[in-house]
């Protein structure tokens, strides 16, 4: 396998976002932001590993099914931090995570996917995925509602929180169509891949900008 095989539009934006995150968030005072590049790193590894599996004619869905655990945890933790500015959101977020856990349990049971048994099962954890999309879309919209209700003025152009949530809303709300029509896809059609690619570029671009804002704001608050 050549190194060029790993360079795809997906991996480019994911690696770029990870590097920006690493540079901007490494010294961040907030722990949630500080550990966020770990999730981006896991994403990159998952993507690269999935490419490797595909090239070797293996099923490559299962790494995504594992990384979904990190996705749910990291994103929920970030929302917990964002919501805590407005209300005590611990129960709200834990409730969401509990729902996801139940869905995940159901998915692995129906697909017979367990870490050490039938690990290479090639079925997407659909219910977890759909539920996560719905949940994170609701979280994003709730965050925007709280933002609108807040009497304080925030310059949104440079708000890292805001741009992070914008990325989430675009990706998870936008992917609703893919979730709805998943059963209708024909394997030869490239359209779902293009839509996913656009959504991935949107979310990672928004996140990269959000990290830059975060770094800039930290610098400003110190000056």
């Amino acid at each position: 396998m050549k190194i060029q095989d790993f360079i795809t539009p997906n991996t480019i934006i994911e690696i770029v976002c990870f590097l920006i995150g690493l540079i901007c968030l490494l010294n961040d005072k907030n722990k949630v932001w500080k550990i966020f590049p770990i999730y981006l790193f896991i994403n990159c590894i998952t993507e690269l590993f999935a490419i490797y599996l595909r090239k070797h004619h293996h099923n490559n869905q299962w790494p995504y099914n594992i990384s979904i655990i990190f996705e749910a945890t990291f994103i929920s933790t970030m929302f917990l931090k964002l919501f805590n500015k407005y209300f005590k959101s611990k129960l709200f977020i834990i409730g969401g995570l509990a729902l996801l856990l139940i869905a995940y349990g159901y998915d692995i049971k129906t697909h017979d996917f367990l870490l050490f048994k039938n690990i290479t099962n090639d079925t997407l954890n659909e219910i977890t995925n759909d539920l996560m999309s719905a949940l994170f879309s609701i979280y994003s919209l709730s965050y925007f509602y709280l933002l609108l209700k807040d009497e304080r003025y925030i310059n949104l152009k440079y708000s890292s929180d805001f741009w992070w949530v914008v990325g989430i809303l675009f990706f998870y709300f936008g992917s609703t169509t893919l979730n709805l029509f998943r059963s209708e896809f024909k394997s030869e059609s490239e359209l779902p891949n293009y839509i996913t690619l656009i959504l991935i570029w949107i979310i990672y671009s928004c996140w990269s900008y959000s990290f830059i804002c975060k770094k800039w704001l930290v610098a400003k608050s110190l000056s």
Partner: protein
Amino acid sequence: MASSEILKLILITSIIFILAPISIIAYIFVYNRRKKRHIEEKAQMQLTFEAEIAKTQLEVQEQTMQTIGADLHDNIGQLLSLTSLTLNSIELDNQIKAKQKIDAAIDLTVRSIKEMRLLGKLLQGDQLVVSGLSEAIRHEISWMERSGKYEIGYIIEGEMPAVNSPDKDLILFRILQEILNNVIKHASASKINIKLEYLNEQLKFEIGDNGIGFDASDMPLEQRGMGLQNIRKRAGIIGGEVEIRSNPGKGTSVTIFIPYP
């Protein structure tokens, strides 16, 4: 459904599902800009309010100083000059006359001391507003009654709130001073009635006189007086409304309604 139709449907739905967040974000930006403008306007209003309070404070002090200046010149100055003249004219040879003159000088000195005490209280007048509107009004009235030209009635109706609003008190006190100035200068009144009424978190402040009155509709705009305009402006700053009723020969009544405290 044919494959191409499904793809078309997916494409259209995807576009809609991407456009929806764009619309939401655009709305948030517009709303946020409005919020910023609103906050700026609020800050500007606060600045104007504070400037007006400072101006009012200054005007109250200025009025006090003018009154003191006039009183020093007209009353205490005269009394002391007369005392000096009386003492100078004493002839020690004529003991009976000398005693009469000394008694007169003592009397004049006592009157001067009384005047000085009243002046001292007046000097504290603007400070009195801080401790309560009602007390400040009482002092203003007692000073005005001293001239003997006016019969002043003062009534308080309803229980005044335990917590007062110093800024509103100051503005109301200044309005009272402006109205009393107008009465002295233009009304030719002999009776003044002041009523302070508190009901349902609303303060009604009424000042009426039995003077010559005026017809506001007949009066050219420039003659309506800065006083009346100022009263309306000041009351407006503290969220109040002013009602002025006057008719030629039937006196004038100014009523101010403000939310309080």
